[in-house]
């Protein structure tokens, strides 16, 4: 393979691709992780199968159930972070996710469940309006 006439070109392409992917993914991760918390409210929403089933604005502990009233998980909210304890699914990925702040989410694919902070409406976010024309 090292005898290939374009071996050096292939290595150059490999290195370029590696740094391109690592830099793009790394920068996007940092933007997603740290750059968007200002776009979220303190309200926690729980979506199951694409539909919003719960909405919490105050700290507390709640049992999350699907539309058939089947238990899925127990959600905790301390006013700043959300996390879940106990789950009906064998993977328990939602439990392993740990504590999540604004901008993060807890996802359970088997139960088609997403727990996340509600995004600000465009009208709530003053910094999204540059000019009012009326």
């Amino acid at each position, binding site marked *: *393979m090292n005898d290939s006439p374009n071996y050096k070109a292939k290595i150059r*392409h490999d290195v370029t691709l590696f740094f391109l992917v690592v830099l793009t993914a790394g920068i996007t991760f940092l933007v997603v992780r740290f750059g968007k918390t200002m776009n979220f409210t303190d309200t926690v929403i729980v979506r199951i199968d694409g539909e919003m089933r719960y909405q919490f604005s105050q700290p507390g502990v709640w049992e999350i159930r699907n539309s058939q009233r089947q238990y899925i998980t127990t959600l905790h909210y301390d006013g700043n972070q959300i996390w879940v304890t106990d789950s009906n699914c064998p993977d328990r990925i939602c439990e392993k*996710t740990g504590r999540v702040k604004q901008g993060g989410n807890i*996802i359970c694919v*088997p139960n088609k469940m997403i727990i996340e902070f509600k995004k600000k409406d465009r009208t709530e976010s003053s910094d999204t309006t540059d000019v009012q024309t009326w």
Partner: protein
Amino acid sequence: MVTLGVMVAISSVVYALEGLIPFPVPGGKWGFSNFLVLYLSFFSGITNGIILAVSKSLLGSILSGTILTPGFFMGFLGSLAAAILQGAVAKLDIFGLSGISIIGMLANNIVQFLVGSFLIGSPAIYTLLPLVIFLGSFSALANAYLAKQTEKVFESLEER
């Protein structure tokens, strides 16, 4: 055929065991079981790569007890996409083993997240994609190294 069978066995066991290795993204894996899919796609062609990708996903998920779960479909289709794309790009003779491995990692993760977002009916899962791709770039290099070492083993066996 015997070689392919051994590869299916090795990658299935790695597939089942690598779930025990901690990964920063909940539910994620490093993807080290893909090094033999990469090896076959690169050195042997798309067909053998696809056979191994399908076999190791089925056998590995049976061993780990995750067969036909949503996670299985994500991994199965991701691995299949990686095998097809790796084999196709290898024929273009533009990238080396590392580049092909990174392309396979991208195909694998993007397809997995597409399937995941379809299953949960939301794009929220994509927030994890940049971190998975960032970490996957390093395991792609590891897989390229392992595939290269596998080639050396087979070369030395042929010389005997």
